């Protein structure tokens, strides 16, 4: 189970990323954030976001057109 969850379903680019960034502020180092999105572009975008920001993309999956990402903030 993720420590935090963000429902970004129905939102289009770049809102899932912007909301994730905001949500990560409440995620402590070492904790995880789960993001749910219906934007197919968010698959590539969360990979790029995590590479650039040093967060870890633990999981990226798709079920019934809902994309799920699990991001871990690196331990400080």
């Amino acid at each position, binding site marked *: 189970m993720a420590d935090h969850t963000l429902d970004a379903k129905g939102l289009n*680019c*770049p*809102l899932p*990323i*912007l909301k*994730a*960034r905001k949500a990560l502020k409440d995620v402590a180092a070492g904790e995880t954030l789960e993001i749910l999105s219906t934007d197919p572009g968010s698959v590539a975008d969360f990979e790029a*976001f995590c590479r*650039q*920001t040093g967060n870890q993309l633990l999981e990226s999956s798709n079920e019934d057109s809902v994309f799920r990402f699990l991001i871990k903030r690196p331990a400080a």
Partner: protein
Amino acid sequence: MSSEAQVVSDATQGAPVAVPETKSMSIIVTKGSLDWAYPPFILASTAAAMGLPVTMFFTFYGLPLLLKKLNLQLTAAGNPAMKMPMMGAHMGLPNLLTALPGVDAACTVMMKNLMNKKGVAPIEDLREACLDADVRMIACQMTLDLFEYSIDDMIEGPEIGGAATYIEVAANSHINLFI
């Protein structure tokens, strides 16, 4: 993100100085129609969310994007690529028809409805996201004069500057975009 720093020589001192590796971005915003307002605000808010310091320079028709109250419009005139999805097809307008009164207003309403349906953020929200993320905004002084705007007409946050102000930013940015 690595914390490596590259070493460059400082022409005035001849001594090497460390330049931080953090990437930064600047955008010159020159267009103020509903459609053209999106790329700069999307890229600025996203870059800021990814940790890049961002500066936006608002000049000419981009300057009114800083007005307190936005009422952005778009026009189909001279834009043959503007085709909207309608009843399973994509419909465009012949240039001649785009000159009829009310056509631009109708196109604007259709576009705003479409954006709302597809979960695209209103420009006001993206602008707010930029301000929340400390995106630096510069209003072009010459354009303020030219179009007779006052900085008091604008939202809180932007500073006033000119070409040299922007060039100093651009000279220290890794990514410089003109939109």
